[in-house]
């Protein structure tokens, strides 16, 4: 269902995994939107006005009304365009609770450990973060087995809430894998997730908006240089 011009705008930055979540959700629903790319290092007036609390991207503007926080945006898009595309969250309340639980886990546990690998100042600190990241992925592998019910995604046959939550980090995961010289989504440790990762990145709703690893590497180098 195409939105009228100007009806849907997304304020964001191309490298942000949080922005990517919003984009994938909008793509899944076939929503046309204007992407307002923020200039790196500068926050636009529109952003500051639309998200005065956190002053962060992404912000979805629907009829100029702002929605902030990536997973809240995803849930909003799912509800606001309920009649388009496939449901992002399942209908059953218990399944929804499970999806929400794992999305929170991904942000609270997986992301900090993955980020910890990049930030680590010593080999020891790095090793610790790597162990934590792998441990988190093991739990997510089990979750995938339960939630996917043998199908391709956490959401079953189609990309769902947890897929978006975790999948958004895949671009940066590849950068960290290269920089740290290791595999996070390891076929031996987490075989289901290793396959899922490729599948997610290749999905129609994702491949155009997932940032290229080389571009992210350059961006990361620039950040480090700062």
């Amino acid at each position, binding site marked *: 269902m195409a939105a009228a011009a100007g009806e849907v705008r997304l304020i964001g930055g191309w490298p942000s995994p949080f922005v990517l979540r919003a984009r994938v959700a909008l793509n899944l629903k076939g929503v046309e939107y204007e992407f307002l790319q923020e200039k790196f290092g500068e926050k636009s007036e529109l952003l500051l006005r639309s998200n005065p*609390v956190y002053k962060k991207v992404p912000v979805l503007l*629907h009829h100029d*009304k702002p*929605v*902030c*926080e990536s997973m*809240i*945006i995803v*849930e*909003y898009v799912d*509800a*606001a365009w309920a009649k388009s595309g496939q449901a992002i969250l399942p209908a059953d*309340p*218990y399944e*929804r*609770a499970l999806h*929400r*639980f794992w999305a*929170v*886990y991904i942000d*609270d*546990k997986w992301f*900090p450990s993955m980020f910890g690998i990049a930030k680590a100042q010593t080999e020891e600190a790095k090793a610790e973060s790597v162990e934590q990241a792998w441990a988190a992925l093991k*739990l997510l592998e089990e979750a995938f087995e339960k939630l996917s019910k043998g199908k391709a995604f956490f959401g079953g046959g189609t990309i769902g809430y947890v897929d978006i939550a975790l999948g958004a980090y895949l671009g940066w995961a590849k950068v960290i894998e290269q920089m740290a010289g290791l595999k996070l989504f390891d076929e031996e440790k987490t075989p289901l997730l290793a396959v899922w990762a490729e599948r997610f990145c290749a999905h129609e709703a994702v491949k155009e908006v997932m940032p290229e690893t080389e571009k992210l590497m350059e961006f990361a180098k620039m950040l480090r240089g700062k």
Partner: protein
Amino acid sequence: MAEGENKGLVLLDFWVSPFGQRCRIALAEKGVEYEYREENLRDKSPLLLKSNPVHKKIPVLIHDGKPVCESLIIVQYIDEAWPDRAPLLPADSYARAQARFWADLVDKKMYESGTKLWKLKGEAQEEAKKEFIEILKLLEGELGDKKYFGGDTFGLVDIALVPFTAWFYSYEACANLSAEKEAPKLVPWVKRCRERESVSKSLPDPLKVYEFVCFLKKLCSWHVNGHLCRPEYIVGGFRHGRLTSFVG
């Protein structure tokens, strides 16, 4: 098939936990009967460990044997599992997104900031006070002149925040911070919430909370090697990641 929708509901909880209280309030609003089980967080029950193997924390709501974890997720689950009465979230999807945003903000800010008030001293406590006052003012601004955060209906944001009001007495006693003075517009809202049976029955006596805080402070003064002790092994019900930012 369950005989009545009340069959098989167990809430694993700890009396002083604001996160557990959110669940109690939500269940009471829906008029749903459940079995309350107080956990000894120094000796967690096998049921708790089995039901929340990832975090091993309360609250956990077990519905017909199926566990739901994380307080705001539990509250939304309660709302969705009993959709026929006392809606805790608005019908409109934009309003729902706003409710989730503010409930999430309470989650991100209130507990950590509030804990710093009674844990820290001197300069650090003064900083914590400034931070806490900012959060209160932000919430006050969002409430405005509305009856509740969601408007006329008591809902998710009220449920997320109101348990922390039982700690206001402790914040004043420990940090000389009067939430009522700093955010006067919240005062009528607190009163209004407490008039609801679901809230008055679920929140602890602020004096008992203060006793508990004093107990925690004593424990914290028995620290080893200058590191502040981490009380979450006692209370366990709080989001792990949030405490580590200022411990040790």
